[in-house]
């Protein structure tokens, strides 16, 4: 070990590496390229992973939706084609029967699934927008970003069935002047005055919601549109450790039970679950990460083999020099260490340069994709990956260096010196 920290050793190594610069540089580029590919690939994979996560961050990953349709089977004396209507009391039953449910938010909407959008009027400006009846709990399932100064619907709004609303960015743009603060202002929704209490920021993430949606308290919606106990659909979030697919099945079974639907009826209760899709995407990102690992490591390997190759040639060329060294008293161990350290050193230099370059390329890609509608964010390579790559390089460098080192030692000094 002392050998490693001896400045003399390094001087010897620099001396022999430096004597053939072009070759050294080309060799180094081989490994550099490998580690560059590795870093860029795994960084990009991580970036995609982050990008997906960012797109889905507003939605609880283990969430699902359930809604009612018409039956496709007769059951308990009811005929086929009966329209099922979800009710508010279903919430309690679902929560009681399925302990895996963490949050359940009944929701209603006007203007998405049939029915005309609400007519919104303010100061002579008007528009048609979808209006949602919501409970505060719905933000636990799908986060709503509310701009500063505003708020989402709260429990008091629900209790008092207050006429308050949260509007979208686009609604704000279309109904208000640029310099106007909509908070506290009034708009007319289907001829009823509502006070604006918040503006929500729209984040793209699939689904049917948009940047013009207006949210009002569920209870107010009920009065406004005379929907009684009816619920459009349930947004449900399961506990983190629960299997959302299982929960989805249970929810459907319970709803069928409540509403006297044949348990085998596939159509009566519709559902959609984000967990499954999310898992698929996570799997895709994981696959990408794995691929990039494999490709990256293979490329590093190719580069390191290149170093071994060059060192073999170099040992052949330096036969005489190595013979002289041994005549002057270099032990086989010292000769071997010299060659191996050259190999490891070249690999490491190439590796570190590759990592730095790779980081540069990643940040460049990040800059370019910024603001593009592309799921790519904060491409980073986890430190363990980097350290792992370096460790792999040291190990490979040593192993590959062993071949030329053994070759160097196997040449007898006398033969080396005789070679003219």
């Amino acid at each position, binding site marked *: 070990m002392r050998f490693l920290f001896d400045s003399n050793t390094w001087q010897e190594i620099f001396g022999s590496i430096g*004597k053939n610069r072009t070759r050294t540089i080309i060799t180094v580029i081989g490994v550099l390229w490998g580690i560059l590919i590795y870093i860029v690939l795994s960084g990009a994979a991580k970036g995609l992973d982050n990008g997906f996560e960012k797109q889905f961050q507003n939605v609880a990953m283990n969430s699902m939706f359930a809604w009612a349709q018409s039956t496709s089977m007769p059951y308990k004396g009811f005929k086929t084609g009966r329209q099922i209507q979800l009710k508010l009391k279903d919430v309690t039953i679902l929560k009681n029967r399925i302990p895996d449910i963490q949050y359940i938010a009944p929701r209603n909407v006007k203007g998405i699934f049939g029915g005309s959008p609400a007519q919104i009027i303010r100061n002579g400006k008007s528009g048609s927008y979808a209006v949602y009846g919501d409970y505060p709990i719905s933000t636990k399932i799908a986060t709503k970003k509310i701009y500063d100064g505003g708020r989402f619907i709260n429990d008091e709004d629900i209790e008092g069935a207050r006429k308050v609303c949260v509007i979208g960015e686009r609604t704000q743009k279309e109904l208000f002047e640029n310099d106007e603060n909509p908070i506290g202002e009034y708009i007319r929704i289907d001829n009823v005055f509502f006070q604006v209490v918040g503006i929500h920021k729209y984040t793209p993430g699939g689904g049917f919601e948009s940047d013009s949606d207006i949210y009002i308290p569920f209870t107010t919606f009920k009065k406004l549109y005379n929907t009684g106990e009816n619920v459009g659909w349930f947004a449900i979030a399961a506990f983190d450790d629960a299997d959302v697919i299982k929960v989805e099945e249970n929810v459907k079974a319970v709803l069928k039970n409540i509403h006297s639907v044949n348990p085998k009826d596939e159509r009566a209760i519709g559902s959609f679950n984000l967990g499954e899709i999310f898992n698929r995407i996570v799997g895709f990102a994981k696959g990408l990460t794995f691929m990039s690992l494999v490709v990256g490591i293979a490329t590093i390997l190719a580069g390191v083999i290149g170093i071994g190759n060059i060192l073999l040639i170099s040992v052949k060329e330096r036969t005489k020099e190595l013979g002289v060294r041994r005549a002057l008293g270099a032990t086989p161990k010292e000769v071997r260490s010299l060659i191996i350290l050259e190999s490891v050193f070249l690999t490491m230099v190439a590796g570190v340069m590759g990592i730095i370059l790779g980081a540069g390329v990643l940040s460049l890609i990040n800059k370019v994709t910024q603001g593009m509608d592309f799921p790519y964010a904060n491409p980073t390579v986890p430190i363990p990956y980097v350290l792992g790559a370096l460790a792999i390089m040291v190990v490979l460098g040593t192993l590959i260096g062993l071949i030329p080192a053994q070759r160097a030692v196997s040449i007898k000094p006398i033969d080396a010196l005789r070679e003219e």
Partner: protein
Amino acid sequence: MIVIKDLHKSYKMGSNSLHVLKGINFSVEEGELVAIMGSSGSGKSTLLNILGMLDVLDEGSYTLDGVPIKNLNETKAAQYRNKFLGFVFQSFNLINYKSAMENVALPLYYQKVGRKERQEKALKYLEQVGLREWADHLPSELSGGQKQRVAIARAMAAEPKVLLADEPTGALDSTTSYEVMDLIQKINDAGNTILIVTHEPDIADMCKRIVHLKDGVIVEDKKITQVRASQYV
């Protein structure tokens, strides 16, 4: 200093065995300057290689400075070479990417001498061979005679018991040869033991003793009156 008894050495060449040294008895006292002469194929280089521990003997014994040289592994041989022997080669064998000083310092590196001390010593020996101001030059920037003087400085730097020179003037013109021999004589005057393999009679005459080898045996071993090289320089 060197005692060799009944030394045999043969090389296997396929199915044939080539008997190169056939019973050499030979000893060298401290401070001697010995020329080993012989035509090519006489076994003189083989003898020098065995003396230099670059090759192993088949039979007989070899004692260097009271240490029996036998059953050496490569590591031990390297250590002994470093401690006991200095080599001078016909083709100089300087390391071409190292400066004169670094070349001279190399055996000291393998003796684990610290860098500062190594450089001081290297400069001291370069001074002795008259090449101090060439210390930072690469071998390619030196003439043949200068290269050989650097090689001699390198051989001396380790302060060996015996200096082994294999045709040290073989690649040099006669004037340069005499300069190199002058240097070798001076080193010998200082009390160092030196063995030179040569086939040039005038070079051999500059030694104090000539050993003639022919077909693997010593045919003549005589002390002579040394011709000083300085008169030709």
